[in-house]
């Protein structure tokens, strides 16, 4: 039996096509991936992200503990601040990529991938058991929270009507739209508190909202009602994937896994080598200094071809050198795009590569990330 989110009935009512996504019965699309993708690029879309995991890390040792298991420097977070970060094993391989927020002194909130909840919690608990600093307590709060992402350039025109008023906790702001990128605050919504962060996974402005089931169900309905005049639509995992691929955001299991490092994946910006010891640091420092054997690149098809897909071979100068990890037809650009791993010698923008599709090779070119950038 697949897990269902508190928005399952809402998806059914909207006629969503549901698929198994990491053990969750999730909407892949409501009308069409292209329509939903373009709604987010041009207006607004709401995604059910209740399957994602939440972990709270509290205590006098929380900051030092998180800095020993995460790659980014958590000391840079003020209360109400959030950062993209990664959790690595001793080989520098990625256990998960996540968002970390500081809710108050010694209180952190981690948002992790649905498919990695068990692995992450087990990993964090094992690391906490070995941690020699002050006391830390870890709680997997995934079952307590539902969540939505409301994304798109017109979201700011209606989100304050959905969640009215000033924040009540974490960080003082006069309204949801007063949050700056990566900031989080608690807002009283009807009878409960919801956390609202100005973050997302689409490359557009937007907010991620985490709260109790009843609040998220009400917010889902209010966004569709109050956002309708602004073009807001429900959007499924299909559009979520094409949106993030266009802007080259990694997806765990595709760009990232336990045998791939953040340096290889091109997210070294979120690795603070200067902060002191942390899991994987020696491998990551060595790779940063001496280079890597494989590198994540973005590419566009230049031949007319079927869309590139994960696991298609990448060829350079007549040799198979790597594999596509994400690929699709870009709804914004109307051409085949993707990301894949190649040797560093073939990773520079403008390098001509070929993608093998059903036994035939088609021309493509390495491009600078992101593949899609707003005009």
């Amino acid at each position, binding site marked *: 039996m697949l897990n269902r989110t508190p928005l399952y009935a809402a998806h059914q009512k909207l006629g969503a*096509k549901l698929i198994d996504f990491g053990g969750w019965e999730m909407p892949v699309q409501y009308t069409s991936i292209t329509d939903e993708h373009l709604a987010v690029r041009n207006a607004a879309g709401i995604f059910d992200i209740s399957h994602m995991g939440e972990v709270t890390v509290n205590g006098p040792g929380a900051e030092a503990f998180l800095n020993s298991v995460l790659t980014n420097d958590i000391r840079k977070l003020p209360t109400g601040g959030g950062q993209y970060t990664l959790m690595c094993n001793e080989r520098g391989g990625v256990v998960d990529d996540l968002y970390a927020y500081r809710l108050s002194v010694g209180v952190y909130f981690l948002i992790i991938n649905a498919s990695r909840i068990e692995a992450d919690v087990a990993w964090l608990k094992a690391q906490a058991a070995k941690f020699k600093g002050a006391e830390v307590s870890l709680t997997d709060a995934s079952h307590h929270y539902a969540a939505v992402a409301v994304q798109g350039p017109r979201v700011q025109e209606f989100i304050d009507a959905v969640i009215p008023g000033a924040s009540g906790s974490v960080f003082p702001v006069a309204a949801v739209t007063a949050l700056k990128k990566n900031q989080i605050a608690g807002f009283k919504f009807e009878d409960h508190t919801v956390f609202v962060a100005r973050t997302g996974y689409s490359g557009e402005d937007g907010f991620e909202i985490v709260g109790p089931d009843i609040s998220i169900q009400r917010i889902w309905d209010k966004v569709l009602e109050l956002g309708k005049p602004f073009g807001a639509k429900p959007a499924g995992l299909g559009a979520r994937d094409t949106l993030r691929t266009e802007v080259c955001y990694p997806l765990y299991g595709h760009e990232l896994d336990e045998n791939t490092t953040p340096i290889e994946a091109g997210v070294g910006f979120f690795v603070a080598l200067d902060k002191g010891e942390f899991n994987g640091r020696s491998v990551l420092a060595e790779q940063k200094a001496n280079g890597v054997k494989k590198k994540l690149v973005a590419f566009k098809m230049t031949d007319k071809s*079927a*869309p590139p897909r994960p696991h298609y071979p990448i060829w350079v100068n007549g040799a198979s050198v790597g594999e596509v990890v994400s690929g*699709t*037809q870009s*709804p914004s650009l109307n051409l085949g795009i993707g990301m894949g791993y190649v040797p560093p010698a073939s990773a520079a923008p403008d390098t001509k590569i070929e993608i093998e599709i059903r036994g035939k090779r088609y021309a493509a070119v390495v491009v600078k990330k992101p593949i899609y950038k707003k005009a």
Partner: protein
Amino acid sequence: MSNVPSDLKYAKSHEWIRVSGDTATVGITDHAQAELTDIVFVELPATGRKVKAGEACAVVESVKTASDIYSPVSGEITEVNTAVVDNPALVNSAPDTGGWFYKIKLSNAAELGALLSPEDYKKQIGG
């Protein structure tokens, strides 16, 4: 509700076939295009290729996935519809008219008896 024209025969794998003498036209059903949505690429068999009933001989790709298309009957491909290669969205807008895939010269007309009637296909798709 999907359109299931009454003058066609159907394969369980969601292809339709329109028979005219010893040749037939093949495409995918309105139900299939609605399930796929956003068709962005169509790959057709080469003219002259001999295919068997049930053999994968074309590919249709939506934004999300690639799907094989199976020939409902055996025979030789005599013509393919380049209009759907140039404009894959035609399969979405006109699946059982302008969005046809290929014409085939039947090598075993008895196979037609194994295909579904419009009524049976409607039942299969819950329409």
